[in-house]
């Protein structure tokens, strides 16, 4: 299953990429592949912006606007004017709600 086409914020910088392959290893959606020593996005529409690739790139060659793809979290963020947070607790947030 794929979500909306052409919306991901994923950006790769081929001149910073050293071809270590770590991003390909950590992507849970098979978005990235190695091509002639560089990481390339072969399936952008599968990207869910989890940020695993960016987190694990030691060379700052990947950027993505990491966040939760969760409508109730984003609506909560709009109402409170703060960061989108799921209603599912964690940290100092009271537990409750329906997300993840």
């Amino acid at each position: 299953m794929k979500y909306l086409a052409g919306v991901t914020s994923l950006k790769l910088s081929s001149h910073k990429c050293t071809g270590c392959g770590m991003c390909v290893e950590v992507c849970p959606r098979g978005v990235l592949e190695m091509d002639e020593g560089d990481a390339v996005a072969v399936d952008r529409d599968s990207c869910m912006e989890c940020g695993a690739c960016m987190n694990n790139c030691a060379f700052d060659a990947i950027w993505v606007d990491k966040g939760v793809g969760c409508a109730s979290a984003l609506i909560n963020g709009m109402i409170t004017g703060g960061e989108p947070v799921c209603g599912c607790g964690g940290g100092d947030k009271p537990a409750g709600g329906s997300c993840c």
Partner: protein
Amino acid sequence: MNNNQPPPPHRIIGPHRIIGMRWIIGTVESAAGPVSRVSTVLTGADLWGHFLCRISGHRNDYKIPPGLYAAGNPGPRSDVFASANYKMSFDKLRAALDGMDAWVLVLDTGGINVWCAAGKGTFSTEELIGRLRSEKLSEVVSHKGKRIVVPQLGAAGVSAHVVARETGFKVGFGPVAARDIPAYVAAGYKADRRMKTVPFGILDRLVLTPMEIIPAMKWYPLFFIFVLAIFGINPSGVSISDALSFGAPYLLLGLVAVFSGAFVTPLLLPWIPFRSFAVKGWITGLAVVYIVTRFLWAGGRPSSELASFTMLFFPLVGSYLALQFTGSTTFTGMSGVKRELKTALPLYMIFAAVSVILLAGYKLRQWGVI
């Protein structure tokens, strides 16, 4: 991350039976002191707990103390696996380690699963580094190129190169599902494509639906009172029998809308056309409401205002609830959900306003004002 370090498990060895941690079945000696050994067989009580987590808020307080645990009889050369302190995550890991000798390092995620905690930043690089240090992992294990296996979905929170730089531990990202760990280890610590990607089959979706329906139903009492008020307040006064007899179809349609958006749409997700969840939910809602009204209206259609209200409002509820399911899926991203909300929220407000106008029109006509 967490300055209030909970006591390491070797300090909670004593009272574990008192606080119900029956899955601790002994201790294992390590170079850094005794470590609690856990059972690798899940009991009926464990499975009952998992079931309650699927159908209620039970999961909000289903946690275990973070720290180091042992599965089997591990030694300095055994593998180390990281997990979250959500008991269901931990249970799935220890069950997968049945027959193996391994260390389990449980991070403090506030009782949230690995995937969500990585997104929230509690299953994090800092927490992992802190926990490796506080549990003295570099003394517990002494294998060359010390390695800790982190679940694949933890990668959204953990930077392997930073952990390696700070602690000397090499992070290996294991499979998504703990049950694939034996195969991952047998393959020489390599996760193949299937192990690395997140399945989201019909059963995976089915188990998530109760927690879509339950929060939606919290609004139902309000809707119930609203419907009874609309049909019960007449020019001649308040009539309970009118409220119930004329309101009943709409009370049923309210349930149908919840069923459509929070159960049918998630279940049939891949087969409903279009990628937008709001559109998927609306189409499903329209279809389900249409089918139900064929029966409800078999004896005669309601007024045009009520018929229009029905076909407008209830599919809209289905659409809104389907949009909420984006938070439970394994393939929706923030940019996409933002785009949906940008279009959907104004439309929801407009159509909700039109729905109210239609109901007002119905009441005014009934009262003979128009």
